[in-house]
């Protein structure tokens, strides 16, 4: 086992899949020669050549649309959108085409592609380099939406995504690219299945559902409140769509209190689906209202540091929310 950063884990995943399967290729802005603006594809251009790691025009629609076509042909494209904030020109291709192709052709045509993008704030990026976009896509049958929180999962899940015959949206918490380090087995082929959530900290008092960067802070918050005698069960959702309702409901059955934490804006954010799931199917187990701790309903993450920190959630904020819920 070696300890690596999340972005390194992502790079390794792509490296291994490019080596394993000729049909895999990467297309995106600056992914080739430059190795990606976050260095996620560093060294891959040199290793696999311009045939497999393609610098695309500055056109997200092209990146995804061409990806769809290539997938129809039989390739396994990994399409990189440089920042999730710029995914919208490709929205038409993702939602109208990629997600619906299999269904609309009655199973004749599949789109085995990955669309990966760094998301999330806390890096001084302002409105257009900090957005969370998962809520748009966790609503589209035919797509899968995956968000890892640590290097081990990032690598395993990305490999699974590449091998998945369906279009997979893979959002990477950019703040954690270098911040989050973790152990990853060396020279060992492994994948993490897309679908199940993971209980990363077992507890009795409160179920805390989260993903991405917030998972990192949730674990910290859990330690903080443990000193107050509050035992938090932390669940890393990992696959947001399809929803792992089973894990969610089983946890609430145990603890009877649920807190959902995500960086994205509160209203209409992914937490609403988790909350509705619990309210609908876990009602008789509830000992308190289901709570969400989420980003404020303002258009996006502001730039100036104090304003950014006002927007962003941290371990302290999570701990306070946990304490409040525990006292109910």
């Amino acid at each position, binding site marked *: 086992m070696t300890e690596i950063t999340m972005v390194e884990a992502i790079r390794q995943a792509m490296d291994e899949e490019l080596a394993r399967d000729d049909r895999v290729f990467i297309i995106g802005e600056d992914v080739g020669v430059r190795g990606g603006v976050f260095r996620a594809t560093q060294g891959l251009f040199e290793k696999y050549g311009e045939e497999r790691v393609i610098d695309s025009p500055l056109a997200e629609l092209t990146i995804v649309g*061409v990806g769809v076509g290539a997938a129809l042909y039989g390739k396994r494209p990994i399409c990189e959108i440089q920042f999730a904030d710029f995914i919208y020109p490709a929205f038409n291709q993702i939602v109208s085409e990629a997600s619906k192709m299999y269904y609309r052709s*009655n199973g004749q*045509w599949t789109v085995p592609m990955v669309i990966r993008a760094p998301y999330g704030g806390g890096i001084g990026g302002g409105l257009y380099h900090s957005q969370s976009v998962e809520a748009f896509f966790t609503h589209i049958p035919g797509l899968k939406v995956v968000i890892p929180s640590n290097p081990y999962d990032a690598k395993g899940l990305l490999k699974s995504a590449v091998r998945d015959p369906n279009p997979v949206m893979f959002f990477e918490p950019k703040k954690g690219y270098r911040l989050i380090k973790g152990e990853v087995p060396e020279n060992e082929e492994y994948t993490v299945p897309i679908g199940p959530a993971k209980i990363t900290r077992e507890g009795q008092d409160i179920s805390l559902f989260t993903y991405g960067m917030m998972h990192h802070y949730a674990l910290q918050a859990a330690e903080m409140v443990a000193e107050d005698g509050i035992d938090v069960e932390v669940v890393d959702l990992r696959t947001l769509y399809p929803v792992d309702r089973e894990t969610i409901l089983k946890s609430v059955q145990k603890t009877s209190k649920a807190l959902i934490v995500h960086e994205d804006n509160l209203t209409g954010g992914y937490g609403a689906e988790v909350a509705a799931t619990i309210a609908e199917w876990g009602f008789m187990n509830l000992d308190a209202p289901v709570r969400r701790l989420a980003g404020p309903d303002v258009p996006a993450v502001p730039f100036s540091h104090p304003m950014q920190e006002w927007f962003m959630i941290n371990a302290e904020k999570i701990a306070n929310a946990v304490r409040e819920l525990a006292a109910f």
Partner: protein
Amino acid sequence: MSLSTEKKKEMFWVMLLSRRLDERAWVLHRQGKIAFHISGIGQEAAQVGAVYAIEKGKDWLVPYYRDLAMMIGMGMTPKEFVMSLLGKAQEPTSGARQMPSHFSLRHANVVSHSAPVATQSPHASGIGFGIKMDGKDEVVLTTIGEGSTSQGEWYEAVNFAAIHELPVVFLVENNQYAISVPQEKQMAVKSAADKACGLGLRGIEVDGTQMFEVYDAVKEAVEIARKGEGPSVIEAKMYRLTPHSSDDDDRSYRTREEVEKHKKQDPLIVMKDQLIEQGLMTEEEYQKLEEKAKKVVDEAVEQANQSPYPKGDEAAAPVYAQEVNHD
């Protein structure tokens, strides 16, 4: 440019059958038997000419919703088409999930398309990209209406194909109207082919009512592409003889005189006359073809009528693939 007589007659037959089938769809709609039909009447010559220029089963077709004649040429049967009009179970393009004329035919390498226009163009480029990566000599033929070339999707697709010299032939079926919007409101250039030079690839104009001229133009572009020498934009100019679809009333945006004028240039009549003039087909043979066409269409309608509707809950699937089935 050597098309045998047989081939030419075959191509005419496809035009004729397609036309009679198309007309029957209009009848069914006005009878209240189907909900929707979008027509290719007036565009058959260009479509058949183009589709015979590719190698069926080897090359790829990424069509749009007026390409009924192309689809007949690619092997879709009239019965299958009527099934899609009626929404019958297991109709081949989508199992009745899509509206009619959203074509797809896996066994003939015809890619499923949707309704937001021009989304198919980047797919064509993507397929071309895959072909090039594999070093194969397959070619992609993709079609689109002239109005849809206003979409960013089309420009990005053509741009990408041009950058990478992909084996894609972008055929623009300019029928001069995008629902009610005429060409001059759609582009500042005289033809979509003119846009090509701005993007750095070949742009060719051709008379879309002349089946064999279109054949020649497309064939040439296909050969160039097959050799790896890059994509082309071909605009075939024709006229949409019917309203946009079964729900459209075209009296609000064009005159009857205009339509009548273009009816005289109806490619079916033009090609029929041409073949007879050139001694490739007799009037009798033609009448026989008409009879045959009617019979085929009648049979298709009857058989399609008898085939069952899907059960409602068939709509629940298929959402997620368990495996890729076209490698």
